[in-house]
């Protein structure tokens, strides 16, 4: 993780009331399985894997994000990584699948505040209007030059999953956007 992302606490600029925060460690698994195995994976993970494109489901501290028609990003507390992976392997014993731990490959940045969508629009080509990108929607996309997974957790709260090597870049672009907003 780059040093700029490891900054303590959140960068809070009152002028825009929009904050960036680096999230702590978390267990991340990428699951690929055919439709026949989705029910088994859902019960093993404890979250119903969304089958509607570009939707995320949460249950407790865990979440399942739809990435593709047979591909999900599973998030869980960092301490549960081993048991979540073991439970999924057990539950999917009869189904061909791929389960890859990606906890250390990516990190997350949370953009929170009234102008969160406007801030993201400086690098994200998607329409982030609530009608086009409702709460609970998630998708792989691009932010400036970095591939990300964008998840709208609330009307004005987004979570960005980004590969660690892109994280300082992503942070600096967002931070620059905030400062420009402040200067206006």
């Amino acid at each position, binding site marked *: 993780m780059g040093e700029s992302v490891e900054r303590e606490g959140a960068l809070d600029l009152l002028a825009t009331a929009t904050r960036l925060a680096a999230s702590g460690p978390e267990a991340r698994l990428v699951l690929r399985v055919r439709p026949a195995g989705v029910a088994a994976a859902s019960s093993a993970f404890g979250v119903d894997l969304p089958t509607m*494109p570009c939707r995320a489901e949460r249950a407790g501290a865990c979440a399942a994000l739809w*990435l593709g028609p047979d591909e999900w990003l599973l998030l869980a507390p960092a301490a549960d990584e081993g048991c979540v992976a073991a439970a999924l392997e057990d539950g999917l014993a009869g189904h061909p699948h791929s389960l890859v731990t990606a906890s250390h490959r990516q990190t997350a940045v949370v953009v929170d505040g009234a102008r969160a969508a406007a801030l993201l629009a400086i690098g994200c080509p998607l329409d982030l209007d609530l009608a086009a990108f409702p709460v609970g929607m998630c*998708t792989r996309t691009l932010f400036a030059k970095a591939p990300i997974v964008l998840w709208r957790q609330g009307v004005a709260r987004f979570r960005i999953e980004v590969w660690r090597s892109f994280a300082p870049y992503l942070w600096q672009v967002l931070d620059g956007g905030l400062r420009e907003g402040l200067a206006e």
Partner: protein
Amino acid sequence: MLLIPCPWCGLRPEIEFSYGGEANIARPADPAALTDEEWGAFLYLRTNPKGRHAERWRHANGCGRFFNAVRDTVSDFFETTTKPGELPPSGGKS
């Protein structure tokens, strides 16, 4: 910005996609039986039409899936996009 309808994700910006070349080119069952000319034609010769073109695209920075599209090479208009193995609504090849 050109919006391309991904069969799974809906209308998405062009920057998320990568082009996959002409669609519906079947790999010869027994390449060793082909002449060099026939193999060369399979590898390199494409229709390159002016107008309606069946082609493959991949939603590389989205759901990551390949799909088929019919695009007008003059206007860039996407007539239809379909999941692999599906026929377009108008029938015929996509």
